């Protein structure tokens, strides 16, 4: 059963390895974020005031990673694949094929797609090898920009605000522990003491 599921997934993604890297990367970030958040929360050697920053930082890391992965990495990859399918980015063999078929005037037009040509099979192995490579390289560069530059900057900025609020709350609780304010109930005399103070008054 599970073998069939993996085979089906492989069939869906076999034509587009770059897309598979996007989807598996996203699921990977969600799992990693959950595990790391638990690890910080249960680490006794980290001070609780530092945890007040590290936990929001980790949660925002997961969230921002997923969004920036789709907005940046996917866009980056899609732009490059569009350049390949419209012939704007090609190798010598693909260009020769386009010249041979008098298609150079169509290069770069949005409605032009090499894969839709009637004689596409002539160039398919060469074209697919090139396109697969462009897909992998562009999604890797996009991932480096989104995961290693954009995400850490944004996650830190986003985590600063909740960490400040959490620390203020912690400071307030610490102060209350050091200088406990007597509650209204503690000021009330117990009934016995009231009765003592009441003297001979009849109630």
């Amino acid at each position: 059963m599970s073998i069939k599921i993996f085979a089906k997934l492989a069939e869906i993604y076999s034509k587009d390895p770059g897309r598979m890297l996007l989807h598996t990367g996203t699921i990977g970030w969600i799992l990693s974020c959950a595990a790391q958040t638990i690890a910080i929360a249960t680490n006794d050697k980290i001070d609780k005031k530092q945890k007040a920053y590290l936990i929001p930082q980790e949660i925002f890391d997961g969230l921002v990673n997923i969004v920036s992965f789709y907005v940046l990495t996917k866009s980056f990859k899609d732009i490059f694949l569009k350049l390949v399918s419209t012939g704007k980015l090609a190798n010598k063999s693909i260009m020769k094929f386009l010249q041979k078929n008098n298609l150079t005037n169509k290069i770069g037009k949005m409605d032009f797609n090499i894969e839709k040509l009637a004689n596409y099979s002539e160039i398919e192995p060469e074209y697919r090898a090139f396109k697969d490579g462009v897909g992998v390289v562009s999604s890797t560069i996009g991932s480096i920009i989104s995961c290693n530059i954009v995400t850490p900057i944004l996650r830190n900025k986003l985590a600063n605000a909740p960490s400040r609020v959490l620390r203020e709350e912690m400071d307030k609780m610490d102060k209350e522990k050091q200088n406990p304010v007597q509650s209204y109930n503690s000021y009330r005399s117990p009934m016995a003491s009231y009765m003592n103070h009441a003297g001979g008054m009849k109630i």
Partner: protein
Amino acid sequence: MISGVGNNCNNINFGGHFGNFASKARQSFYDLIKNRVVKEGGDRFYKFAGDKISSAEVRLILGCTALMTQPFIDFHNHKQDEETRKVSVCRTVAKIIAGMTTGFLVRKGTIKLIQACSKYPVEKFPKWRTIFTPKNISNMSERDLRNHQNDIGTWVALGVMLFTNFLIDAPLTKLLTNLFTSKVVKKPQDKEMRGVA
């Protein structure tokens, strides 16, 4: 402007002026990019990347580049005090090392396993060596078979990482964080000693 709405939701056509504007804008954007025919070296590089770089190698590349950027970004977050920034840097480095190592090994291992279990069904291979062999293997090119093996390997790796994230990654990150933090962050008693001296 919505130019026309069909009989059901799937037929809603957002064409008209907006559609024309969007396609013209996209065309203008692509027109800004120069046509480029890559040279022999570039072509070889792209083909090498398509052939040899699987999700395992991508994880390694991302981990190495993360070590070059993320610790510096964390250390320059001046909204946090110095101690917190140091702990944050230690944790980031620990997380990258743990994630990169387990991520690479799990992905590489599962891809190798799938390659071993998707052999061409001939007599010399036992049945278990063909459990991941695609049905249409005889019509597949070498590239298609390799993509198939990498894809199944990556998905199996994801299943394995459901467990390794919690059983290896997170505990290893915790261990390394505590190790790095003990070297970088001064303990309160050390500060007191320094104050007395």
